[in-house]
């Protein structure tokens, strides 16, 4: 049977079609932000056409989406009312009150999802153990419902104090709402997030109510469109914690799918790790704007019980807290498009990003400020002639000029050194994030491998095993879009086959270097001489490691630099072969092999 998966990202919607015994097919299509389902339906049909299949031949469709996240970030959810305990209407306005920048008194708090006028009170009170101190006053409930309906609320959140211990009052409010307005969706804190700490619980419940009509309409439209094309089997949506849920659950509790897309990347890492015999993995997913770090502990993606959505400048405490299980991810403002600048004699990278538009200077689309990708191009980590599988050419001269102007000249460095500095500063940001994900959360980095993916991910992590004491680093061979790949990897692994993700068997050094030039040693690695080697795990073509004896000898940053780009790597690197094509071919071969046996 055939299965299809798709993931809606900010710029592209990615598809993968997988069937027993054949190579998976991939498709990348521009996202249609005003109606995300449109791109999905179009891509769905195109991929089936290309494979010569009918929708009825699919057994499963899997979906990861950022629709809930975007509705929150852009504040484009439905008009929502929040019903709460009398005396506490300001809980979501007050929040936890700590400034995310200590010295900035001109900052803004994250705006709540609803204006104060849409926060309504009912008379009732519970004690911490759930006993009723003041019974719910039905008249106050009716008054709150009147106000909500008068305001045109299309969704209702109910979050009463101590409702985690006793949901009876919330249920009574829901019953009253059902009697008055049966079609109005109601989200109860005792159902969505029955945990203590009123701000976080209310925030979660409110976010759920706020995105519910948007997600519901989208899911129904998508389901209808797929059904109209003859698909009648299982349709699942990925939730933030990594499991799959039905469209009905996604519609009732959309707050569960806020981190849907990024979660899939960590699942993929777990599957790859399983196949490779690595069960302790730090994952690193770097795109144009941000990098997201996660972890796989004992073979399972690490899950957190709370996270923040829509943080400001990626500062902890600046977003809206959501108390729902999610794959643990730390997001930092360090992507390929992160802008570099020189200030008080040091190099700063991000959180400001050139994003996809105008993008890095080297894209030639109007970007004027040097970015991490520009530095990586100058350093030879990116191939100007074969970017995005040859679909884009990069302007190396413009990137050089930008780095020279903004970094090299102000700091008195050569362009290569300046580029190395940008690369190193971005790496330092990531290393800090890496420490948070590892040691601060109780993971001994010496036991962990790192898996890097995402558009920009593979240029960066080579230097970390030294700085962060991580043991090994590796990356999938194709520029994967995580969610379809993850689905695919899971499937493969479940059949006890090796995923064909690894570039090539790195056991033979020569071939490894030839087929994956992006993984040649960077300047940091070069300083260690022969530290750059393939995997030493017998027979497992998995971890292309800088498993690092050099860690203990701990080469300093300075020493790394001293043999860095200025001396060794000034020239343009030899061009990578068509990496993606090679890898795809390899995968196809292996795939055929594995079905043959």
């Amino acid at each position, binding site marked *: 049977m055939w299965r299809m998966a798709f993931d809606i990202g900010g710029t592209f919607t990615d598809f993968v079609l997988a069937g027993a015994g054949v190579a998976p097919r991939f498709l990348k299509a521009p996202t249609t932000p005003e109606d995300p389902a449109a791109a999905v339906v179009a891509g769905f049909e195109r991929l089936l056409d290309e494979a010569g299949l009918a929708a009825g031949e699919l057994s499963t469709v899997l979906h990861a989406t950022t629709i809930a996240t975007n509705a929150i970030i852009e504040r484009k959810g439905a008009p929502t009312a929040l019903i709460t305990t009398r*005396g506490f209407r*300001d809980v979501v306005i007050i929040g936890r009150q700590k400034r995310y920048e200590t010295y900035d008194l001109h900052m803004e708090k994250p705006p709540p999802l609803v204006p104060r006028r849409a926060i309504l009170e009912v008379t009732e009170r519970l004690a*911490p153990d759930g006993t009723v101190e003041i019974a719910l006053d039905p008249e106050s409930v009716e008054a709150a419902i009147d106000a909500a309906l008068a305001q045109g609320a299309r969704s209702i959140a109910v979050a009463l104090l101590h409702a985690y211990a006793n949901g009876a009052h919330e249920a009574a409010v829901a019953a009253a709402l059902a009697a008055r307005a049966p079609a109005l969706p109601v989200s109860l804190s005792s159902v969505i997030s029955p945990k*203590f700490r*009123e701000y976080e619980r209310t925030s979660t419940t409110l976010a759920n109510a706020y995105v519910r009509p948007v997600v519901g309409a989208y899911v129904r439209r998508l389901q209808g469109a797929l059904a109209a094309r003859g698909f009648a089997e299982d349709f699942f949506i990925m939730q933030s914690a990594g499991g799959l849920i039905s469209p009905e659950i996604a519609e009732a509790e959309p707050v569960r799918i806020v981190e849907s897309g990024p979660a899939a990347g960590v699942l993929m890492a777990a599957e790859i790790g399983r196949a490779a015999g690595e069960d302790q993995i730090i994952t690193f997913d770097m795109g144009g704007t941000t990098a997201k770090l996660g972890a796989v502990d004992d073979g399972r993606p690490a899950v957190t019980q709370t996270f923040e959505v829509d943080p400001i400048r990626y500062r902890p405490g600046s977003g809206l807290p959501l108390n729902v299980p999610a794959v643990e991810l730390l997001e930092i403002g360090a992507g390929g498009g992160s802008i570099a600048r*020189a200030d008080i004699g040091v190099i700063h990278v991000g959180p400001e990003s050139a994003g996809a538009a105008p993008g890095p200077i080297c894209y030639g689309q109007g970007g004027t400020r040097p970015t991490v990708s520009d530095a990586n191009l100058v350093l030879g980590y990116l191939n100007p002639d074969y970017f995005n599988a040859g679909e884009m050419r990069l302007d190396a001269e413009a990137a050089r000029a930008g780095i020279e102007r903004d970094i090299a000249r102000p700091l008195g460095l050569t362009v290569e050194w300046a580029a190395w500095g940008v690369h190193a500063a971005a*790496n330092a940001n990531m290393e*800090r994030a890496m420490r948070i994900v590892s040691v601060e959360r109780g993971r001994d980095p010496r036991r962990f491998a790192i898996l890097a993916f995402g558009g920009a991910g593979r240029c960066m992590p080579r230097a970390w095993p030294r700085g962060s004491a991580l043991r090994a680093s590796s990356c999938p061979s194709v520029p994967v879009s995580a969610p379809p790949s993850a689905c695919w990897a899971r499937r493969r692994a479940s059949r006890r086959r090796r995923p064909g993700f690894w570039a090539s068997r790195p056991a033979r050094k020569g071939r490894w270097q030839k087929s994956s030039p992006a993984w040649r040693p960077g300047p940091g690695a070069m300083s260690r001489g022969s530290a750059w080697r393939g995997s030493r795990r017998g027979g497992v073509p998995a971890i292309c490691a800088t498993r690092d004896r050099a860690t203990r000898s701990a080469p*300093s*940053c300075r020493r790394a630099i001293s043999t860095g780009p200025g001396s060794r790597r000034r020239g343009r690197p030899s061009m990578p072969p068509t990496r993606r094509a090679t890898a795809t071919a390899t995968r196809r071969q292996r795939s055929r092999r594995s079905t043959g046996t």
Partner: protein
Amino acid sequence: MSATAIDPVGLTVIWNSLLGIAEEMGSTLRRTAFSEAVREGDDFSTGLFDAEARLIAQGNFTPGHLGSMPYVIESMLDYFPREALRPGDAILMNDSALGSGHFPDCFLASPVFAGDALIGFVVNTAHHIDVGGAAPGSQRVHGVHEAFQEGLRILPVRIVREGAFEPDLLRMILANVRVPAKVEGDLRAQLNANQAGAERFARLWESEGAGVMTAAFNAILEKSEARMRELIGAIPDGTYSFDDRLDDYGPGTPPIIVAVDVTIEGEEIEVDFSRSGDQVPAAINAYLNYTRAYTVFAVKVFSDALLPQNAGGMRPIRTKAREGCFFNPTFPAASGGRAAVQIRIFDAINGALAQALPGRAMGAFSHWSNPNIGGIDEATGKPFVMYDLTFAGYGGRADRDGAEALAPVMNCRNIPIEVHETNNPVRIHCLELIRDSAGAGRHRGGAGLRKDIELLAAEATMTLLGDRHLNAPWGLFGGHSGARAETVLNPDGNAERLGSKDVRRLVRGDVVSFRLSGAGGYGDPRERDPGAVRRDIADGYISPAHGREVYGVEEKERSE
């Protein structure tokens, strides 16, 4: 100055690593602490020093601690010379004059060694919710005349040897506090934080080498100083003065004059509090370390909010106050409640610098409320201390309204109602913004905040720590003052008005209603965008009558 040169790339990486170590110490402390103040409230700070006792890096925590840290190691070295220190040692200290101005803030400093060589220090300070003394929470203002009434005073002692607490010292400390389990838990968390920081600091040092690290330290301090000088240099020269006052230092006492003269001269700034009142016989005096901490904070706010803090950036800032003045008292001046003063230090400097930098200034803050309620919890039979933090609004700013309900000056989180009610015998009846309390202006201030707390235990002692009950938070450039604060005992009974630093015995069923002041406005309210006024009416921040009378905007109240 630096013998070895350091390149910008290496400096970038090392500086980031040092800041990362300070942050990691903080998260270790938070994750392993026992008390609500540390675990929930983030009332702590961390720092890294070099072997010369110069502050090199700090985490992004509360500035009163951060700004008092620079001299802490120097003071400790007077008691423990470098050669007396061993790996695994930690020195504890909570003296008001040497530390951050009151006994609850306990500093724990650990020397860091690379091999046998002392390479620096890691320090953290945490607010302990009780260190003994006259009242639960050790912050009682009224009726406390000298430091000896305030609890345990710890001059630097070596409380940890070879990574283990000295049991004798620990026993003595814990015997003198009301909540020994929480104090011990927090002390151990402080040691965890230092151990985590020291290990990383030593590893960084060993991987980079002494020469590079020393060069990096020098460069960090020099560059920070140079940037601070540049920023101060951009402020027009002159002396700018401002006078404000604190309500009192207990029922029936006179106001405390807060007068500041800020002099900008080239690339240096001097902030002189000498015209302020004398030290007072109550536990609210601001020792110079504390005055300096918030002076540095204010200067940073007016210059570059994001510049990392270290000794270099503080060099061009001089804080002065005559000896015996409220802002530079002499021991044994009592100071447990000095936290009430921090906002006023900022307000006064803000008022002065508004003349030089009107675009960076803001109306006066709502004050805050930091009461402690302590007694015996009948559910457990043990003492409890409810340490509370309530924050209201910011003053109106040049380009927008003041923020609603945000930590002013100090930077802590509040303590959730459900956490308070679960851990302490109290019931909180409301926590809500107060209508019509915000100072009107083209950009209005944030609203005041009301919180009503009922005692469920048989009896308890309550010490109040607030202000702006008598002197409203002022507005700037035509902006109005916010509404004054009130503290009312039993608002539905005889509604007795309490002073902002009152001390009361509460009995079961007593309700204390805290009503924080509104923050000051910025600019003439008649210039306010009528759309913003209507929005405020619809959201209940102001009444239609207030909109009409103060802003000149007619709007009917929407029914809800």
